[in-house]
Each structure stands twice: as C-alpha cells, then as structure tokens.
C-alpha cells in the first residue's frame, strides 16, 4: 500500500474502471469531420486554409492566434467544405473547419511506422519547435500548450518533471490503456521533456489501483537508458490535480495564483508525453488521442477504448460503439467529477476529449437541496483547504472582499465539496461564481496598480 498522496482533503469515489480490460481499437474515419479552432487554452487558432482547398492528413490548417495558442492540423485528407460557426458540446457557436473526408493521405516527412526511436535530438530549441509545430497541448484536461509549459520563464528552474498517470477520475481508462500499450513511447516522451527541462528529476506517478500499469512502466523504465522513477500513489481523488500531485510527489505547495514552476515543478500528463514522443521522434502532429466509451448503464462488452482522430463528431463515436444506451440520463465528456455534461452530442471531438461517459439517472441526478447542517464534510473534502460552506454564504451575501480573504480564487473546481455534501447544496456551482468574482477583483486591482505605476513614470 502506497502512502504517497496529497495532504489536505480529498474523497474516495468508487473508481468504476469498467473498461480497463478493453484494448485500444482504431476508430474508422467518418465522411465529415469538424475541426474546432478553440481546442486549447488561450487564444483560438486562425484558419489558414480556404473553402475548397485540398488538405492532407497532418497538414497545418490553422495557426496560433496568440502566444498561448497552438497549431491545428487536418485529421484526414479531403476538401475543406466550410469554415464557420458550429456548436461545441456546450451548444455555443465556435469556429470550425469542416472537412469532407476523401481518404487518409498523409503529408510528407511523417514516420508512420511502429519502430521505437530512442535517440533524442540534441538541440533543445529544435525539440521545442517540433512540439509547437505539431500542435501538442496538455491532454490531462486543461489543454495548455505544451511548448509554453516546457519553456519556463528565464530565472525559474525546473527541479522535477512529474508525469501524471494518476487517472484519479472514476470510469476513465484511456490513460491506463496507453500506459499498458504504449509504455515505451511514453517513457521516451518523458525523457524528451526531461532533456528540454535540463535533465531534472523525472517521476511517473501512477495510482495503485492500476498495478498492471505500474509494473509495465517499471519494466520499460528499466529497459530504457533514461533516469526516470515510477512512483505508485495512494488512490484518492483529486490525486491527478496539478497542485495535489506536486504536493504528493515533492511535498511542496504552489502559492495562491502561482504556477507550478514557482516551486520547481512541471506536470505533464502521460497522454501528452505520448504526443510529445510522436511529435519529436515521428514528426507526427497531434491529430489522434485515446478516448473511453463507458458508463454505469452500458454493458461491459459494449465499452471501448478508441484511438480517434480529433474532429470526429461525438455522435459518430457513440453510434459506432452501439448508440446511446437505454438508461443513460446524462452524457459526459471527461470524468464524472470534473468532466463536462454534453449538451450537444453532434459536437466534434477536440484535442482534450477523453471519454464519452453515460450515467444513469439514479447515479447522477442531484438530490433536492436542503439546509446546511454544518457537518463540515465540504471543508474536510476540499483539497485546497477551503471552506465551501462559508464561501457559499459569502457568495449569497455578495461579499467579494470576504470571498477573496477566504481564498475563493484558489478553488480548483474538483467537485469534492458538492460530491460530499449531504444536503445537496450546489456548492461548486456557487463557489465557481465566487471564484470568478474574487479573480475579477484581484485583476481589477492589479490593473489599477499597473495604471498607477505607469502614470507615475
């Protein structure tokens, strides 16, 4: 039993990894694909193709729209049919490039073979350029552009690269499957990032409910010539949260509003590591990812882990896997704790898509909200040490100064408070709003201070 975990709060939902034994299958291409321009954190990408253009698989079709942004590539070969607004999974219009799929003809220079390439390029900047050119973003959920994260601001030193294989969300198994099936590629990817960061300590953290993955990873690390540790972690949600993982592995805490690099940490998901490997060693842009089709109202034989091309509509995947099951009341993209409810199944998959999760009404419908009995379960559960019951009260009173004093802005939106509330008070719904209010106040103050400083000059 591993005792390594984060120190504050946390909950223990049933891990329900129903699809853990389903090997990754390759999903065939549909006739039409829709590539979103906003599938990473930061500014949306700008399309550089026009309607009617012929594109090849892996060809750049959109370029970064800002410093924090990413390249987007065509997931198949075909013709650009339209460029315009299309509804994302929340139903809000986002610019998409529609591609009529005609085949799978790749651009030149991509190594499509399965051979493992273990020699890492010498030059650091060349590696970063490749990662950027291939549109790699963090696949753990936040989709932050990887080349930015791997290139810390001058003055800050990376002391530890943590590879996040915790997969603490119940149901999801895509990370687990790639850790089993693409083990060595992930390790090489980690070694590449280790090199970029100047050869710091590198740890792969895996929750111990995945012993097969821990074993496979240990074997791969032993066979390959890099200095990487495999660290089994205790099963506890949200172990995979960036701040929590840093606390578990390094016993350091990122200050409020700070970045992980401020305590010398860089956290990358194992799926990102795989994408980095493919980008750097194979020249292959990020146009595929792994996705789990699972749920508690889906028989195990109908559950799947798919390797999908980014841009395939969710509805196509659902249909291919046998349709939306009978008892499904809620469709979720991502895990049940932090995933987003799908309001529009026609939406296209994005780089960060990790699952289609079907939940039955009994397991997902919220109970009737009742009065707070001050049991303190939310306070015990919060991994940031916040007091959601208090924030709820302050939010209702509209007291922004008190919200800020009680650290509403530190909320990581993990959902532990609402998960554990016996009165079913929509704590996170309100705390998220409270966080927004506190952040706005902080930003307004910073802007005012900046303006004052400039006026002085």
């Amino acid at each position, binding site marked *: 039993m591993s005792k390594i975990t984060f120190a504050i709060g946390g*909950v223990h*939902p049933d891990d329900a990894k129903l699809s853990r034994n389903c090997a990754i299958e390759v999903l065939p291409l549909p006739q039409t694909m829709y590539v979103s321009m906003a599938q990473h954190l930061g500014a949306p990408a700008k399309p550089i193709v026009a309607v009617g253009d012929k594109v090849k698989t892996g060809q750049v079709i959109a370029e970064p729209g800002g410093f924090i942004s990413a390249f987007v590539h065509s997931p198949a070969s075909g013709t650009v049919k339209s460029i315009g607004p299309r509804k994302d999974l929340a139903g809000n219009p986002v610019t998409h490039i529609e591609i009529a799929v005609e085949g799978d003809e790749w651009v030149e220079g991509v190594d499509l073979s399965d051979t493992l390439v273990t020699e890492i390029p010498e030059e650091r900047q060349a590696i970063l350029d490749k990662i950027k050119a291939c549109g790699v973003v963090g696949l753990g959920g936040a989709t932050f552009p990887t080349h930015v994260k791997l290139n810390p601001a001058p003055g800050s030193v990376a002391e530890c690269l943590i590879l996040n294989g915790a997969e603490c969300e119940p149901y999801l198994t895509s990370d687990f499957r790639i850790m089993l099936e693409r083990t060595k590629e992930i390790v090489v990817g980690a070694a590449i990032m280790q090199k970029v960061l100047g050869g710091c300590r590198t740890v792969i953290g895996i929750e111990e409910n995945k012993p097969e993955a821990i074993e496979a990873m240990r074997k791969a690390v032993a066979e390959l010539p890099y200095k990487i540790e495999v660290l089994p972690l205790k099963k506890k949600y949200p172990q995979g949260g960036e701040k929590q993982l840093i606390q578990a592995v390094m016993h350091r805490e990122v200050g409020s509003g700070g970045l992980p690099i401020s305590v010398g940490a860089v956290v990358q998901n194992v799926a990102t590591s795989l994408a980095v490997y493919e980008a750097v060693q194979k020249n292959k842009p990020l146009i595929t990812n792994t996705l789990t089709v699972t749920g508690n109202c889906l028989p195990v034989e109908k559950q799947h882990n798919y390797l999908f091309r980014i841009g395939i509509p969710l509805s196509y995947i659902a249909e291919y896997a046998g349709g939306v099951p009978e008892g499904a009341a809620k469709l979720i993209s991502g895990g049940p*704790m932090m995933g987003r*409810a*799908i*309001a529009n199944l026609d939406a296209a998959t994005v780089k960060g898509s990790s699952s289609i999760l079907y939940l039955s009404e009994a397991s997902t419908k919220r109970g009737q909200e009742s009065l707070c009995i001050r049991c303190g379960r939310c306070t015990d559960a919060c991994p940031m040490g916040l007091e959601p019951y208090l924030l709820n009260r302050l939010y209702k009173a509209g007291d922004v100064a008190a919200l800020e004093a009680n650290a509403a802005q530190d909320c990581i939106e993990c*959902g532990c408070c609402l998960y554990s509330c016996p009165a079913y008070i929509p704590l996170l719904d309100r705390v998220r709003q409270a966080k927004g209010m506190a952040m706005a106040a902080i930003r307004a103050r910073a802007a005012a201070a900046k303006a004052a400083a400039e006026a002085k000059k």
Partner: protein
Amino acid sequence: MAYIVSPNPHIHAKVSTKSLMLDVIIALCPAVIVSFLFYGLGEIAIMAVSVASCVVLEWAITKYLMKKPATTGDLSAIVTGILLAMNLPPTCPLWVVFIGAVVAIAVAKMSFGGVGQNIWNPALVGRVFLLVSFPTFMTDWTVPAGFISNVDAFSGATLLGQVSILGALEADKLVSLQTLFYNIGGSAGEISALALLAGWVYLLVRKVIKPWITLSIFATVALVACIFHMADPASYTGPLFNLLTGGVILGACFMATDYVTSPMSNWGGVIYGIGIGFIVMMIRYFGSYPEGMSFAILLMNTAVPLINIKFHQRKYGRK
C-alpha cells in the same frame, strides 16, 4: 430524448442528511435499549412521547407557521427526541417531557429557521429549561422498576449527588468496574458508559463524526480532575469518577458532537472540547448543581461562531 446537463461533479457520495441522522439513531440504540431494560415501561413511554412530540411539532411548525415543505423527512427531529428523552430522569412525568419537546423544537430549533440554523443544541435547551422550571421532577432520581432487577442501586441521589452527601473520598470509592457497564441513577441515557462508547465508535467507523471534540473533552475532564484531586483528595473527586459518572460520556459522544452547534474545523473542535471539559469540572467542583454537562455544552455552543472565525482549515499554498 433530452439529457440532463449540470455543472460538475456528476456523481455524489452515498450520503444525505437523512442517512447521517439514521446513523446517529443507530448509534444511540445500544444506550436506549439498556435504559429500557433497566427502567422499564416508564422509560419506553418517555421515549415515545419525546420522539413523537418532536416530530409532530416540527412537522406542524414547518407546515402551518413557516409554510414550507416539511423537514421531518431528514430524521433530525427524531434524533432530538431521543436525545431529549435520554437527558431526562426515568421518572419524569410525560407532560413535562412534552413541554421539554416544545422548548427543544419550537424555541431552540425552529425559531432559528430549522435544522442547521440553531445556535444551541435543541435537546439540551429543552432539558435545561425543564431543569430550571421543574427542579423537583428533574432531580427525582427514584429508580423505577425495570426488566432487570436492580437491588444494588442507589436511590434518591446520583453518584455525583453522593459527593455532597458522603464527601469526595467516599464518593470516589463508589466507582468500580461495574460503573463502566451500568450505573443506575441519573438521566436515562447515562446508564451505560459502554453502550454509549459503542455507539460513538460506530459513528467514528461510519465517519459520521470525528473523534477530536469527544477526546478533548475526556482529556480536559481527566486533566482538571487529576490536578484538583492530587492537590486535595478530600475535597475533589478523581478523574475516573468524573469521567464515568453523570453526563460526560453522553454529552461528549452525542451532544457536543452535534454538527450544527459544534465548530467546523478540527482545531476549533479541540478548543471547543477543552472549553466544555473545563466548564463542566468547574461547575462540578464549585457550582451549586452537582452536574453541569448541559450548561457547559450550551455555553460552548454560544462560543462556536467565534471559534469558527478564529480557527480555519489549513489552506493549500498559504502558510
């Protein structure tokens, strides 16, 4: 087909206000059963009247006065009813029990807005009201006939009451291993330390409560008693006597740990427990009442909002 959409999280722990209250009721069962065995039908009647009046009153007040959906479904009124009955002497007349229930539910709980809103533990407010209003009924410790014969029982005074009659030295000798199992005389719920502790352990195992409040009360009571007893054994009873007699165990395990009226943070709970332990010992040693657990808890209930302001959970990344 329309599907549900909501913000995360999409699953919920298998816990509700009702399930928590049910756990408390289950935890109280051993002590309740022991009290039935020793005090017989009279105690069963007190329990029935107390629980029934609490539930009916809460239902009526929510429905007719507050005009809101009834909250009796969360079982908190049943818990209040059981605790009130456990805090009354087994000879208490039923109409007095009813008045206690009215004060507990109508005054101490619903007038603040219902479950979760009250400042003081409702059952204790009911009990203290009765103690002040009907001292004769509330200090009549005659032992009624139970299902188990209790010839060796004291009657007329509780063990704590014996202190002023026999003196501390003699009273201390009354505590034996038997006191741990059953201790006739006193409020109905105080009868068996072991049954109460079994219920407390159940609550801990089920993670309904945390042990800090209870442990800090026990530790403070023992420590204060130790100091005074060592200084002057003739005037002050010892730690074992003070832990095992009266309402310390009932209060520490079930009354002080009431969610609503106890602090939110662990350290706050410890401070709260120390306060209760200290006040109860001061009342026992220097007060005019032989027992002061109810007063101690109510006084510290009053301090909870202050404790909550001062003691917070440790926050991530802020030292």
